[in-house]
């Protein structure tokens, strides 16, 4: 992964090289799903909501939380925060923790930030309104 790519492509590349990783979801600052390899959009949203709840619960015990791993006998859940974006993944049991964190961070950083919506007309309209006032 050299250049910036879209979320779906970045997730596909990561799961190809990291077979321990099962489901991945990338969540934007507003909580919306940016990309996922989950089977359905509903499942992707469930993962996104779950990651948010895990972060909220963990924030109470760990100030300035950057990432977490919840390890169970059924597998692990990883959540990584980078700025305002979050990437979460489920893995097989007993994954290589360092490798999964590295892959998730690399994936998140390779994803192109969504372009801000153009508001030139609205801004121009506001300027006109300010001038007339």
């Amino acid at each position, binding site marked *: 992964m050299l250049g910036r790519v879209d979320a779906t492509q970045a997730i596909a590349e990561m799961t190809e090289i990291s077979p321990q990783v099962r489901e991945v979801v990338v969540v934007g600052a507003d909580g919306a799903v940016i990309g996922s390899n989950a089977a359905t959009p509903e499942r992707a949203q*469930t*993962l996104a909501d*779950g*990651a948010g*709840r*895990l972060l909220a*619960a*963990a924030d109470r*015990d*760990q*100030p*300035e*939380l*950057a*990432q*977490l*791993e*919840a*390890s*169970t*006998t*059924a*597998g*692990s*859940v990883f959540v990584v925060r980078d700025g305002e974006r979050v990437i*979460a993944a*489920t893995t097989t*049991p*007993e994954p290589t*923790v360092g490798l999964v*964190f590295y892959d998730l961070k690399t994936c998140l950083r390779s994803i192109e930030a969504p372009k801000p919506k153009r508001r030139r007309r609205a801004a121009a309209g506001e300027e006109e309104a300010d001038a007339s006032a």
Partner: protein
Amino acid sequence: MPPRKVVTGVLLAAGSLAGSILVRRRAARRRERVDLYAADGSVRSFPEGTATADALLPLAHELLA
């Protein structure tokens, strides 16, 4: 007691001890836990039974179901 039997007994005892250590280590590794990583690189680990793990592990189980 013949020395051969003593050696066999010692080897059996050593084998059992090594086996039990391996089983315990494996069981300890399989215990559920939550690891929280701060931005400064520090890590805090919460094994099952602690308040933090008991709050987060059910959420993880939901996602893994």
